[in-house]
């Protein structure tokens, strides 16, 4: 791979970089700054007033109600990370090392399910998890007592939906880091007499760390914004942060409050990202040191 150094005087560089950069600045970066600015304003009679004070922030920090929901959101996100990674790893590993014949077909099936409308898939889960739904019907016909599971409109229902909608991300990232592992390293470990298990834990697993970390961070960050699952499958019984944000926009028409809560969520995600990046960098620094 040859890399070309380009100066900003080169029209080719401007033509490739500028349009995308402009779109992202105008519709992503500026809106983000605008959101931060809005948290210092207030509303009166459902209208925005440019006051420049800390009223909203004192409200956010003084109401424990917001922080209970925030804490619940982070807890749910962490559980979701653990579950998705535990499911994704064996699947990605099987795709990378076994199943040579049907690999493409399975990949297409996974991508196809991933790209299908999330609202419809979530609606499908209602039909499965409902008290008279498919899951209980199947269990009954397998000899279990009728209406055994009662998962719809519970946090477990929410979690099933979140795992379902997010598990594809770690499958992609872990798979990508597994296929990039140099096969010779694994063979060298075998030659040196290591068992398959030892090789897995000392060669493959450490080398798949980039995929594990990036998948985990993606799931964490994306599940902070879960809205459909708690609303549709959780029945709104234990709302998450996203619900709070929607309410402050739609019911209360309080933009500054919604903006402040959004900033809290974004900051939480960013801190997690930074922590993970720092951790990953330190790990690679220590493993690279000659023994």
């Amino acid at each position, binding site marked *: 791979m040859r890399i070309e150094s380009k*100066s900003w005087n080169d029209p080719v560089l401007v033509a490739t970089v500028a349009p995308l950069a402009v779109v992202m600045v105008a519709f992503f970066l500026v809106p983000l700054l605008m959101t931060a600015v809005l948290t210092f304003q207030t509303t009166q009679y459902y209208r925005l007033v440019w006051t420049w004070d800390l009223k909203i922030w004192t409200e956010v920090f003084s109401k424990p109600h917001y922080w209970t929901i925030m804490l619940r959101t982070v807890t749910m996100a962490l559980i979701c990370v653990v579950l998705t990674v535990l499911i994704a790893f064996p699947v990605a590993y099987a795709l990378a090392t076994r199943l040579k014949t049907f690999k493409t077909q399975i990949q297409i099936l996974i991508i196809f399910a991933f790209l299908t409308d999330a609202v419809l898939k979530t609606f499908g889960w209602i039909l499965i998890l409902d008290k008279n739904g498919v899951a209980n019907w199947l269990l009954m016909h397998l000899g279990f007592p009728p209406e055994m599971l009662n998962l719809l409109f519970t946090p477990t229902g929410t979690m099933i939906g979140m795992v379902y909608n997010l598990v594809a991300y770690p499958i992609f990232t872990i798979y990508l880091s597994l296929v990039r592992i140099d096969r010779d390293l694994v063979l060298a470990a075998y030659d040196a007499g290591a068992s398959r298990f030892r090789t897995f834990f000392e060669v493959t697993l450490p080398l798949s760390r980039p995929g594990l970390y990036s998948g985990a961070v993606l799931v964490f960050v994306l599940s902070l914004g879960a809205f459909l699952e708690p609303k549709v499958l959780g029945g709104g019984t234990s709302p998450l942060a996203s619900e709070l944000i929607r309410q402050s926009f739609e019911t209360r028409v309080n933009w500054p409050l919604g903006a402040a809560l959004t900033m809290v969520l974004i900051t939480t995600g960013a801190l997690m990202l930074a922590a993970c990046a720092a951790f990953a960098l330190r790990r690679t620094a220590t493993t690279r040191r000659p023994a």
Partner: protein
Amino acid sequence: MSQRMRNALVDTTLVGSVVLLLIFFYAPIATLVAFSFTSSRVLTLPIESFSLQWYGELFNKPDFFPAVLNSATVAAVSTIFATVLGTAGAVAWIRYRFRLQGAFRGLTFAPLLFPQLLLGVVMLLWFSVLGSWLGFSTGLVTVIIGHVVYITPFALVVVAVQVYGFDETLEDAARDAGASGWEVFREITFPLLWPGIFSAVIFSFLLSWGNFYVSYSLAGTARTLPIFVYSGIAVGSSPIYPALATVNLVPALLLVIVAEVLRRRALKRQTSGISTS
């Protein structure tokens, strides 16, 4: 022997995990398709008899076809923008080195790390403020802008994988043979990147077609298909939604089949090219 058994056990577990995942992935989709053909009003098993009446009811709903049209327009326009911007971005990411590249990479990758709802909310705030200054309200145009911001990073990553394995000696050869800059792009660069660009098109279209969060925040009074479904199931489950889900799968299915056929044909051409040369 025990070693072999253990290996067999590992293999079974691994393959089993893939099978279980596919069942998990397709359980709700299969359920929807099955229920779309029921004749009953309540969506419970067992399905007593089959009928197409809910498809009829769906097509007779006055807001159904406008929603389809909106979804298709948004998906088509966003796909064009996202693919073009994403391809240019991917080339700049991988092949070029320039000042402020780090900032460019961060800026173009960050939306991928944003929960869609927050992305939608942040843009909604911006468009609302902008709208109150300039006198416009949110609608399909803002949805398209939102989709482009959300989808371009995906397209960029998909194309970047293709750019990464790019063999630039072919470009050099074409240039040595006297091709102009545009000819090199048209005859060499573009065809070589085409598989990645094509995957990006499919990815972008389906991400936009099925997108709920961003559309929901930015659509104003306009409705796309996912919003149409959401507002329906928020009120209570009606038997027309399984039918809608099945209809919704059709464009995705068609795209995947077309992609697979093209891939096979390209593969065949490649292998036959090798055997003749």
